[in-house]
């Protein structure tokens, strides 16, 4: 197999070899648990405290406010359910939005079943939450606002600072899911002014199965994992020392490369978007053109369906020897019959959500890779469109059944 092009880095990234290297010592002779007293354990303890500092440095936090978890899903569940439980006496209302990741929406839905009330704010056609919507939604009994920093599917970056100035004034906690932003764009808890922030190692070249929750000092939150006294009794469980050390290393590397990578990847992203718009008819960019992660491109391709695009790209052919791995918001891959709830939240008709593809780039990807993938995509899209019973060039297929320039789809999105 020729070298694959992996453009699905929003799903997971390749653990950096230096990160793997940093973990080795703690998988070998130095395997002791940091909770123990003897010399052995205290080396492990120093190692995780160093990692805590490294991660704190990346996000501008006090290292005392960093709590290691098994990943962003745990951090998000902890933030939402932990604050809800701790403040249940004060109130049972939580605000989030319709375009959040499932690891935010599902805990919220669960709380709904248990008697909490959740407001799911709309987002605009670019996926942006309107801060004044947040302001209007806050009530006496609101205990938490949870908004993602950067959307994993469309890359839209939310106006967190503006939202934070509202939650701060109203005395409501703000949780930010930064799983997609940490290590990719500047994330500074002081600048963002949030109270809680989630992150996941494998989203920025760190190991899988490790993440963290930042909890600003003084924030009231119940534990999610109760047990031993680890993490100042706030998150029990034997420390995953190699994972935590790897997370620290990933933080150091991300911090060092951040500015250069943002510049490089933003240029690459814009090049891809430009090429797509130049070479393909009847496509649309999903998400915001500038308030956007440097590594995210998401388009809808009219008249064809995402899984078949993804599948075609992933199988090498004689002409395209390098497999290209991407993702799609089509229902066909979600395991349900619904396309991406995020694309629908933008107002996109279902058929355009089914026809969406996401490129998410990594620090390893070059312009050559991008051009290769683009060429492959053009060919695949042509082939699939030639098979499509509905696609007619320039004639937009709409939910309403109308087509052409003046169709309702444009208006709706």
């Amino acid at each position, binding site marked *: 197999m020729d070298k694959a092009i992996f453009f699905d880095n929003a799903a997971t990234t390749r653990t950096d070899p230096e990160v793997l290297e940093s973990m080795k010592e703690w998988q070998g002779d130095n395997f002791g648990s940091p909770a123990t007293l003897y010399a052995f354990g205290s080396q492990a303890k120093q190692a995780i405290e160093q990692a805590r500092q490294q991660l704190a440095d990346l996000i501008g936090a006090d290292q005392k406010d960093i709590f290691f978890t098994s990943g962003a899903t745990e951090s998000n569940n902890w933030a939402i359910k932990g604050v809800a439980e701790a403040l249940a006496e004060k109130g049972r209302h939580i605000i989030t939005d319709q375009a959040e990741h499932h690891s935010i929406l599902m805990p919220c839905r669960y709380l709904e079943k248990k008697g909490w009330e959740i407001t799911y704010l709309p987002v605009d056609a670019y996926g942006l939450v309107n801060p004044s919507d947040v302001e209007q939604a806050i009530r006496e009994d609101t205990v938490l606002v949870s908004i993602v920093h950067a959307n994993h599917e469309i890359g839209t970056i939310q106006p967190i600072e503006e939202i934070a100035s509202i939650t701060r004034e109203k005395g409501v906690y703000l949780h930010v899911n930064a799983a997609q932003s940490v290590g990719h764009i500047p994330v500074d808890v002081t600048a963002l002014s949030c109270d809680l922030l989630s992150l996941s190692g494998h989203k920025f070249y760190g190991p899988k199965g490790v993440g963290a929750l930042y909890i600003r000092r003084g924030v009231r939150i119940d534990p999610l994992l109760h047990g031993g006294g680890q993490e100042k009794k706030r998150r029990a469980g034997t420390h995953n020392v190699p994972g935590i050390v790897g997370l620290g290393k990933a933080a150091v590397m991300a911090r060092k490369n951040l500015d250069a990578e943002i510049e490089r990847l933003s240029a690459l992203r814009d090049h891809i978007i430009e090429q797509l718009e130049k070479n393909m008819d009847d496509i649309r960019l999903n998400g915001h053109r500038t308030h956007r992660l440097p590594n995210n491109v998401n388009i809808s391709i009219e*008249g*064809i*369906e995402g*899984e*078949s695009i993804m*599948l*075609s790209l992933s*199988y090498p*052919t004689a002409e395209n020897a390098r497999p290209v791995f991407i993702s799609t918001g*089509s*229902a*066909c891959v979600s*395991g349900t*019959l619904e*396309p991406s709830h995020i694309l629908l939240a933008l107002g996109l*008709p*279902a*058929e355009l959500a*089914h026809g969406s593809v996401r490129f998410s780039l990594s620090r390893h990807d070059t312009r050559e890779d991008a051009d290769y993938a683009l060429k492959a995509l053009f060919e695949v899209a042509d082939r699939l469109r*030639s*098979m*499509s*019973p*509905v*696609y007619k060039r320039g004639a937009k*297929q709409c*939910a309403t059944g109308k087509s052409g320039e003046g169709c309702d789809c444009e208006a709706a999105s």
Partner: protein
Amino acid sequence: MYTEQVMDHFQNPRNMGEVEKPDGVGEVGNPQCGDVMRITIKVDDDERIEDVKFKTLGCGAAIATSSMVTEMAKGKTLQEAEEITKKAVAEALGGLPPQKMHCSNLASDGLKKAIEDYRSRHKDK
């Protein structure tokens, strides 16, 4: 997750396109659901399917089952073709992932609809 047969039919679809001046046309599905299938057939005097083609908007399974259904239908009498079940199509492809079974449903539905269309036109005559 897909069998080799599925991938083969997906990447090298048989009978893709539209029969010229079709004797029957069946269109099923809905772009909002992500699947649309259009089957066109040419029927000979013995009510055999002389030619059959498909056009499909849909996932890998939808395309592969379309291709397979046309392969299976070709040369069959209308009655035989109507008896091609969703299960038979899936089996001919070496199986489909459980969540994809509805796609293969669509393919045989499209064929049935084309045959119905042929019949309704010929009743009129």
